[in-house]
């Protein structure tokens, strides 16, 4: 495998594998909680952070994390406090934040390849510093998700019953959306904000087709994400294709495969 002789390919693989783990584990909770659309919205909100970072000269990744977390809190607040059409709120925020990001970048004169790489992912330009940031925040996020996995699973199953059994549902909901926002913001460098939603949602939806218990569903989802990221990167290298889109196509193929073999 000559592709691993290059440093940038090694970094790309490490970053890809970390993102696959983070996206699929958090994705299991996101999908079961019926927050799939929220992951898309947060990915677009994160772009506002990237835009501010690019124009103002701050680290775009950090700014993306901050803006994504603030957006996640706003969405959760609106969802839990008002009887709004929650999918409509997500759609409004999705297009609204993307518009804000584009305006900021274009006013700042930075509408260039940098933003493009955050939209579609640019795994080959992942730096050593990016890997450190992704690993550090990724492991904190993953640790929090696994620590509260049983509670989050219960809430996904039935929020009201979880509340009546004494769980701190409000706190746990905010925790889930915050951790997901961090993971999404970290991932957009690798797979891009247009594609991260797919990497979070499709592996879990594919795993659900096998109709197995919770832990097994999470493991199957993880394996699908890892396999897709690995295959996607190899194909992307071999055929000079954009990495994010190739990864998502690989997940889609596995999704269709899972649908077909589990058809009753």
């Amino acid at each position, binding site marked *: 495998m000559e592709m691993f002789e290059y440093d940038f390919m090694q970094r790309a693989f490490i970053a890809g594998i970390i993102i696959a783990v983070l996206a699929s584990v958090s994705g299991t909770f996101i999908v*079961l909680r019926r927050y799939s659309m929220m992951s898309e919205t947060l990915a677009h909100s994160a772009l506002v952070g990237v835009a501010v970072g690019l124009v103002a000269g701050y680290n775009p990744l950090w700014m993306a994390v901050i803006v994504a977390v603030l957006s996640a809190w706003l969405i959760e607040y609106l969802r839990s406090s008002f009887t709004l059409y929650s999918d409509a709120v997500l759609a409004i925020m999705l297009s609204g934040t993307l518009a804000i990001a584009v305006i900021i970048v274009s006013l700042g004169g930075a509408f260039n390849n940098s933003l493009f790489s955050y939209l579609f992912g640019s795994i080959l330009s992942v730096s050593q510093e990016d890997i450190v940031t992704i690993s550090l925040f990724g492991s904190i996020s993953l640790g929090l998700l696994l*620590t509260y996995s*049983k*509670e989050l*699973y*219960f809430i*996904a*199953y*039935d929020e*009201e*019953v*979880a*509340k*009546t*059994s*004494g*769980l701190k549902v409000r706190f746990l909901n905010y925790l889930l959306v915050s951790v997901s926002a961090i993971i999404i913001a970290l991932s957009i460098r690798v797979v891009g904000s247009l594609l991260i939603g797919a990497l979070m949602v499709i592996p879990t939806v594919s*795993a*659900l087709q096998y*109709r*197995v*218990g*919770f832990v*097994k*569903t999470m493991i199957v989802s993880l394996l699908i994400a890892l396999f897709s990221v690995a295959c996607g990167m190899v194909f992307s290298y071999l055929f000079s294709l954009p990495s994010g889109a190739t990864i998502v196509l690989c997940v889609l193929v596995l999704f269709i495969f899972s649908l077909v073999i589990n058809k009753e």
Partner: protein
Amino acid sequence: MSVDSKSPIFDVKNLSFSTREQDILIDISFKIFHGEYVAIIGPNGGGKTTLIRMLLGLNKPTSGEINIFSKKINKFQEWYKIGYVPQRASLVDTTFPATVQDIVNMGRIAKRKLFSSATKEDKDAVEDAMKKMDIYDLKDKMVGTLSGGQRQRVMIARALASKPEVLILDEPNTGVDINSQRNFYTLLGKLNKQEGITIIFITHDVGVIADDIGRLFTINQKAIICNDPKKMMSCDDMSKLYGVHAHLLHNHKHEH
């Protein structure tokens, strides 16, 4: 079951609940004691579900007071003492990735400390709850593949796994066949008499269980509490509150 003299589990005083448009419940007061078996009936939209949602802390009363185990509801922490089986118990999302055991395990989560895994006590409680509900053989089955009656037993097993002192059930028979309903009533009676679990449940089938229940609450904005359900069946007040259903229930009783 006679009302004992110990402090009540639920002590509800002058409870009212209204939305912007209308009053749902007006000035309701009652006490429920250990070991009681209380059925709540009333017309749809009469406020039954709102009442139990307030007892569970899911809705805040507009005015009035709720004490649970002698504590004000906002200070009450030991929610695992109260098991709740919602209306949609048997209508779960069939694609949710959960085995029977996954669901029953949920009953222990609130009791567990952070970072600690399931103890022997947790495992025993889950096993015991599954055996009581006669679903132990189904423990590795996916919940989505079970019948309505089996799912209903899974939900009650989940509630029982926390070793509750009270079970609150909201029309748990929605979507369940007649045979399963009969077994279900027998089982509730057993939990009340043999295990001493206090039972509060909303039902439309009060005629079927009149022999088991201790008290009957009729809720239609206001509450009429009847200490002898058999008398309640022919009581005029009930007709006023419950409308035509009172006669239906009366007939229903004679059929069985």
